[in-house]
């Protein structure tokens, strides 16, 4: 009986109210601002938009922003999985402390993170002095800041799935003669893939638009370490709202294409492995 009621077409009361509230909230904080941005672009027309975006300086900045975000998210994919694994599978003193620390990049104002990283990795900083390559005020500095802000996304996406993953599966795989590498490749990773992809996509999306922390560590030289969000701010300082919107729309479109591709990959792996 109970299950029957659950699959009925409009089973739960209050659908209209909750859906209305959801859409109102979503519109107020997400849809309307983005619609305004897109509307500004439509008012300008595609030719005008293209003219504003199609300059070597903007392409260099967009390239840098997406490249750095990709590198940082890939590092986070590996490092985040490792961290989640350690936190779920091992018991050691201070585990809860480290577990809580993973969320710090969410809580810390990104400017603070940027300044702290710069202080450490500047040529006269504690780490910067020891490193043979320049980190702060060069592209690796941008990667570093983006790794910092993106890390929790991967850890927090993978952790719950990993907790559900029964160690007996791995033991069964081992008793059937699989080596550790095969077990990891054929049993563990496929289960984690959707969560890993989700974390990766979140980290990527977050770091593409990051401004606060990067601005302190980047150096901000045009054609070298100037990120696309800084170019938006520069256009705003020129009171050139249209050009700022044009760069914003370009970033929106590239991000959208990337997230769409990631989603397609996710659907595909889900169908292939059968994991939800």
């Amino acid at each position, binding site marked *: 009986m109970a299950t029957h009621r659950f699959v009925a077409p409009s089973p739960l009361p209050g659908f209209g109210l909750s859906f209305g509230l959801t859409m109102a909230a979503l519109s107020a904080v997400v849809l309307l601002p983005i619609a305004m941005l897109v509307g500004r672009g439509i008012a300008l027309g595609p030719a005008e938009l293209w003219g504003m975006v199609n300059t*070597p300086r903007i392409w260099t900045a967009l390239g840098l922003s997406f490249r750095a975000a990709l590198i940082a998210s890939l590092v986070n994919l590996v490092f985040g999985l490792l961290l989640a694994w350690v936190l779920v599978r091992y018991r050691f003193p201070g585990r809860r402390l480290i577990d809580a620390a993973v969320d710090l990049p969410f809580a810390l104002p990104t400017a603070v993170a940027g300044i702290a990283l710069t202080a450490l990795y500047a*040529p*006269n900083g504690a780490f910067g002095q020891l490193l043979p390559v320049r980190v702060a005020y060069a592209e690796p500095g941008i990667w570093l800041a983006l790794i910092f802000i993106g890390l929790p996304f991967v850890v927090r996406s993978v952790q719950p799935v990993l907790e559900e993953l029964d160690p007996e599966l791995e033991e069964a795989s081992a008793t059937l003669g699989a080596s550790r590498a095969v077990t990891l490749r054929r049993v563990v990773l496929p289960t984690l893939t959707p969560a890993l992809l989700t974390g990766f996509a979140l980290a990527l999306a977050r770091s593409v638009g990051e401004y606060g922390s990067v601005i302190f560590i980047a150096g*901000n*030289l*045009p054609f070298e370490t100037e990120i696309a969000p800084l170019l938006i701010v520069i*256009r705003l*300082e020129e009171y050139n709202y249209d*050009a700022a919107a044009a760069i914003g729309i370009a970033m929106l479109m590239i991000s959208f294409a990337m997230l769409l591709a990631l989603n397609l990959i996710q659907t595909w792996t889900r169908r292939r492995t059968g994991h939800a």
Partner: protein
Amino acid sequence: MPRRQTTDGAPFHRRAILALIAAGLAATTAPGARAQEEVQILNVSYDPTREFYREYNAWFADWWQAEGNGPLTLRQSHGGSGGQARAVIDGLEATVATLALSADIDAIAARTGKIPEDWQSRLAHNSAPYTSTIVFLVRDGNPKGITDWGDLVAEDVEVITPNPKTSGGARWNFLAAWAWALDAYGGDEARAREYMAELFANVPVLDTGARGATNTFAQRGLGDVLLAWENEAFLALEEQGEDAFDIVVPSISMLAEPPVTVVDGNITSNEQREAAFAYLRQLYSPQAQALAVRHHYRAWDTSEVPQYELDRFPELTRVSIDAFGGWTEAQPRFFGDGGIFDQVYEGR
């Protein structure tokens, strides 16, 4: 990103809180009767004036009450000059604007109509009660032997300056270098551009604001010379100790005139208008001018300034922005999209 923050002058903190509560109550109970009791002034200013206006607000509030006027709440907001101008354009209810460049106030006037076009002639000295200039801050003992703009393009010299696109101070830096180059090369603009390209080839970091650049130079130890507001340079000496850096005054620099104005469109009562104009006029009083000098600005009226304070400011040729046709012409020509700064960078 420069952060905007609003602070109350310390001695008035309690009173300000009470006033805010009172204003809040008045607003909920009797919306019409609010402005009668308490005059509020919000001074929207730029970054380096924070300490100066904190003291000036305390002084002015005392003076205002001594003149037999009603209670007054003074609030101040600081951030990058351009960002502050945009905040006012977007609706921040500034009573007075005290920014780094007249171009920023022009932008408010042009975009909102809240300030009359001839605002700059309403107060003395182009509405600039204090002035400053651009100087060099070098490491202690001046190891690279930097004495003037020409030394900045030597191969082994690193120069720290913020981005002229995002920092008002950096625009003054750029124009000061440009003014020197034009003078040194007999007005040959092509040579001046070459000089600027060489200069910016020596810049390893472009911070978004003047304070950020000062930190990069002072805290991170980057660069041999910092192009800075004179008042910022003195502040760095004050904070880091006299033996950390030397100030080098070049032969030519800019006459930086940070202007002040009342934002007429945001005035809600006659009392407020009176207080706002008095607030700006008193900046020219001998006491306020002495205060400005203590905060390392150059003043017009030095009658209350002790001689030893004046000795800190050596004479130099200071070029006015008028030499570049004022900010309305200089801004798009040098710093607009595709302007001389962009050309210098893209031609590197």
